[in-house]
């Protein structure tokens, strides 16, 4: 009995040692990294665009691997300001916000997005929206409290853009009190990624989202008209008519949805970052496939773009 226990202990110890050695070896192997890569810190609404479309294509063409990290745009900018993250490429869903908060040496606007409602096609609201016989605002007015979701306007540009869209729709279609009625009625989701999970599971009948998000989730999408879909840079003045005031008193005016990016001066993998930027500019079809809008207006640069990047 004693010897059995001994041998068991021995074999277990040997096994544990084997596991420990191989684990530590693997850990050390991974620490070195190996192969070139580029770290991208991006607005969450581009997660699928990067993960499913851009990353595989870029890696196949250049051999450079993209390590993507995705948060709401405010969180992305906050992480840079607080120096908690140090990516090679920063991508913002709000070009102005990136410029104001980070004051980069340069940035390039590379795509637009448009606002609308993604709906659950199994709900009455979704069916009627897809049928298209009634205007969306009439259907939205009939929803009960919390049926329709928007992102939290205090945390996310997608949220205050929804409120501003209600505002502009009120003026456009002559709907007295529409913004206030809708603001009271909608559910405000603090986490952007949860917005469409609510719609998919049937917890919400629909949500105000960007078009590429509806494309990502394969949900029917009713795009707002150009007067308030924030997709047309030419209408910047008209969009600015709608404002949203944060709880801290600052006010933000409506502006076109423009994604921009920059490479920080102290990026670890600057060369790879520049190649990724170039790749993004050279392949607008990848972005369009993912639901973004890349019209004549893009790319638009601000500041001194590095020579390595050819606009």
């Amino acid at each position, binding site marked *: *009995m*004693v010897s059995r*226990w001994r041998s*068991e202990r021995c074999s*277990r110890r040997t096994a544990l040692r084997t*596991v*420990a050695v191989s*684990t*530590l070896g*693997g*850990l050390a192997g*991974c*620490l*070195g990294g190996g192969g070139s890569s580029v*770290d991208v810190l991006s607005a*969450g609404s581009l*997660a*699928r665009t990067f*993960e*499913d479309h851009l990353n595989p294509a870029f890696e196949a063409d250049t051999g450079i691997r993209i*390590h*993507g*990290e*995705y948060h709401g745009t405010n969180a992305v900018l906050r992480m840079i300001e607080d*120096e*908690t993250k*140090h990516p090679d490429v920063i991508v913002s869903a709000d070009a102005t916000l990136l410029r104001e908060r980070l004051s980069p040496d340069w940035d390039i606007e590379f795509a637009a997005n448009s606002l609308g409602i993604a709906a659950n096609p199994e709900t009455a609201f979704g069916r009627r929206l897809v049928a298209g016989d009634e205007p969306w605002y009439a259907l939205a007015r009939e929803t009960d409290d919390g049926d329709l979701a928007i992102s939290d306007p205090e945390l996310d540009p997608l949220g205050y853009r929804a409120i501003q869209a209600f505002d502009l729709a009120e003026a456009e279609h002559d709907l007295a009190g529409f913004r206030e009625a809708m603001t009271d009625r909608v559910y405000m989701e603090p986490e*952007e*990624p949860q917005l*469409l*999970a609510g719609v*998919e*599971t049937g917890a919400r009948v629909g949500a105000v989202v960007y078009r590429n998000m509806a494309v*990502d*989730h394969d949900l029917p999408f009713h795009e707002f008209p150009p007067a308030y879909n924030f997709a047309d840079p030419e209408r910047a003045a008209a969009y600015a008519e709608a404002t949203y005031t944060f709880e801290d008193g600052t006010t933000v005016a409506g502006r076109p949805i423009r994604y921009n990016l920059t490479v920080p001066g102290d990026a670890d993998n600057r060369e790879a970052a520049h190649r990724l930027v170039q790749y993004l500019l050279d392949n607008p079809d990848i972005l369009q496939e993912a639901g973004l809008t890349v019209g004549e207006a893009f790319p638009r640069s601000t500041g001194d773009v590095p020579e390595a990047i050819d606009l």
Partner: protein
Amino acid sequence: MRLARGWLNGGRRRPELVVPALLGGVLLLYFLLPFVAFLGRVGSTPIVAGLSTPDARQAIRHSLLTAPVSTAIATVFGVPLAYVLARQSFPGKRLVAAVVVLPLVVPPVVGGAMILTAVGRFTPLGSAAAAAGIPLTGSLLGVVLAQTFVAAPFVVITSRAGFGAVDERLEQASRSLGYGPLATFWNVSLPLARGSIVAGVVLTFARAMGEFGATMMVAYNPRTIPTQIWVAFIGGGIDAILPLALALFGLTLLVVTTLQRLGRLPAVVER
């Protein structure tokens, strides 16, 4: 009603267990409901295809690498700490005990932020390590740091309770028979507290496998299973996270049952 009576009459009669069983059943039902609803979506999702993508495989490899290392670190340093806390009174002991519980109290995201302020890339420690080629953030080492911080309290707290339940006179007997403190710890205290220690190791491992909040702050990349699940969720919603979530359930269950089996091996030589 008849069912309940039949259950009571079958096997050994334990009528005193009816109330606890009913109360426990409520909680069990509450656990099961989301599981069943979630797993009910499996039919419509290609699980194998979801798990065979390079990203998913890499996430599984990273989790299987980091969680055992974190658990080992927590155990090697945590069990001795638990023993000291169980056996010795000293000034500031309450403070030490509170520090051990602290990682359980703060939300994981705050824990991650705390780790970043201590070893982040722009801190003296973090920049020195990065310069030496061992980055403490955005690396597997960063994942281990985050997991250990969040998961280690489980093994400490559980082991402490285990050592506390060991009769000190047995240790004294061992000492009076001429065994040193180390031999006594190894041959008496440790085997007797083994059940609790294994339970703590199991909890720590399970927590490390599922750790997301602190991990994504310290090392979003390289991705572990929970981080990859989050990325899949952002882009693809609930159905997109099913394959990896199932993998996480399966792997954790496998390791936990194996550990529990090991824990049941005879602790002392029986004649």
